[in-house]
């Protein structure tokens, strides 16, 4: 049973979401504030955090940033406003996905399951791109034999790019493959995740040699030319 940490300051929403998610088959722990979330997530050890953005005191973005410093566990943001700036800030702080309130529990559950599936192992082989080694069976990525810590979403993104190496994948394709979003997924999820991935795997993130941007289309993983 997947265990979740739900961080939400409004008691009614917290209770309702806990009820709904528990019913969907999740084990749900809750925190009413950012401080409480930061204090408890290490002892709870959830598989995933559902994090409200508008929290009094330490807000959702800050919680997300602090957790990301050490942990790769997936985070889904719960944003009260669909205003674009919130989404951008949220994705930059390292969230894997976001849902907009008022959220249908079924949608949230689908997103949670999609994020959790990203960590599942596949039976496949090892591919080498220059310094980078992608082991698709062990689900590890290492650079010059040093393992790189990746969030499940980043890992899944690398796996999909590696599965289609040398082939450009559009943002919408990646949204379907990695995020399992419908036809109207937010392409900024892809861009933010690629930025984070480049920061971890590229020598110079601003001048990527592995994950290339294909203008007007999307992204492509290339073995660097010798």
């Amino acid at each position: 049973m997947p265990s979740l940490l739900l961080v939400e300051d409004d008691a009614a929403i917290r209770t309702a979401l806990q009820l709904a998610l528990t019913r969907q088959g999740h084990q749900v722990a809750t925190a009413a504030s950012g401080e409480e979330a930061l204090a408890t997530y290490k002892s709870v050890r959830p598989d995933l955090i559902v994090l409200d953005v508008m929290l009094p005191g330490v807000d959702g973005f800050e919680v997300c940033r602090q957790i990301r410093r050490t942990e790769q566990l997936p985070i889904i943001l719960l944003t009260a406003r669909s205003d674009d700036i919130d989404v951008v800030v949220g994705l930059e702080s390292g969230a894997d996905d976001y849902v907009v309130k008022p959220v249908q529990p079924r949608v949230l559950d689908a997103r949670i399951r999609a994020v959790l599936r990203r960590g599942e192992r596949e039976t496949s082989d090892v591919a080498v791109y220059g310094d980078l080694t992608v082991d698709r069976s062990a689900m590890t990525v290492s650079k010059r034999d040093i393992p790189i810590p990746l969030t499940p979403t980043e890992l899944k993104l690398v796996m999909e790019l590696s599965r289609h190496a040398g082939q450009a994948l559009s943002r919408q394709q990646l949204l379907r493959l990695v995020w399992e979003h419908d036809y109207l997924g937010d392409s900024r999820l892809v861009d933010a995740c690629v930025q984070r991935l480049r920061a971890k795997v590229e020598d110079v993130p601003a001048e990527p040699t592995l994950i290339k941007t294909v203008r007007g289309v999307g992204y492509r993983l290339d073995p660097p030319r010798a």
Partner: protein
Amino acid sequence: MRLTGLRMRLLAAFAAVALLTSAAVTGVSYVLTRQSLMTRVNESSVQQFESTVNQYKQELDSADDTSTALADVAFNMQLAGRNGWVLYRDPTASATTTDSPPYEAVPAALRSQARKGVVAWQRSKVNGQPYLIVGSSLRHKGIEIYDFVSLQPQQEDLKRLAQNSAIASGVAIAISLALGLLASRGVLLPLRRLGIAARRLGAGKLDTRVEVRGNDEVADVSRTFNETADALERSIAELRSLEAASRRFVADVSHELRTPLTAMTAVTDMLEEATDVGDESAPAAQLIVAETRRLARLVEDLMEVSRFDAGTAELRREQADLVALVRGCLAARGWTGRVALNVPETLPVLVDQRRIDVIVANMVGNAVKHGGAGRVELAIGVLGPNLILQVRDHGPGIPSEALEHIFERFYKADKARGRSEGSGLGLSIAYENAHIHGGELSGGNHPDGGAVFTLRLPLQAPGENT
């Protein structure tokens, strides 16, 4: 320059005044001058005539042969330098002048006067030239003497006077025109400035003011203009802040409603499943579930409208395939089977996909809802610089009185129907979404029946180069 303009009218008035004044002045002075000149000539000529005749009266009366005396008289008269002739006639001595105009040149009236023995005079023309003829007679002898005094010098003086007057009038008119131009500039320049300022104000630049110069009527008007602009600016600012406040209120209310709605939405699924079939509370639970969803949609739409009103709606253009987008929109809502598509294979566009989805969902949704059982047709084509997306149903169409209101918020064509499942904001949001793309959404009726909604979008996004 306008012929009926203020400038022309002012100039015409100035010129007329100058013309009238100079005409009056020169006319009066001409008449007076002429009168005094003529009087002077008359008096001196008559005096001269009388003194000369008197001088020789004795001799003329006594002498038998008067021809010598008459010649002396004529000589003396001509000596006075009148630039004329002297005509004399002595019937007894048959002495008569030879180098003068004929006796017939003397007007008959003057002749009859002169024969009475008085000194008479008359102005007359001889050989086309003006002369003053002074004449008299020595009654007992019948001698008649006429002095023809030329009026040519006076005539020329008067002519010169008239010429000079004409020149002076011309100069006066020219000066008055120049003055008129100056004066009209003084009036028209502030007027033109006022006109420009009024146009700017009308165009919405409410901080427009004019400079108040001097203390004349134009300055008064300028001051009034500034005061009016002040008042206008104030009341518009007030209106705007009121409007902003009411919009903020709607946005705030929507925000506040969202929190309880989020909690309610989260448990609606549970409520839906928890009630057993046959349980009498099941319909109540169903009602709450349905209405909660409706309320959630309404709040979402209100927030979207607030964003458009506040100008914070953001357009995120992305490269996309419009046809795939439309197919996805229909599939996601289960409409694929109801809509006949007449679309190209693919049509790459640069749009905000979510907003286009909202527009298409609204157009097709309305057609499905109001179009009866008939099929819905969706066509996509390119017309010049625009792409056209048209959705047509085969229902009763839009009532004509509703046509101009369909994009208004909360407008319902059929008041009796009252509640529909939509929020009443759908079409107005779709309209705004088309607008933010630089396109437009229009609705009407097909000549063969059924409603037609047309979305026009520029193929080229603004600012995008070929």
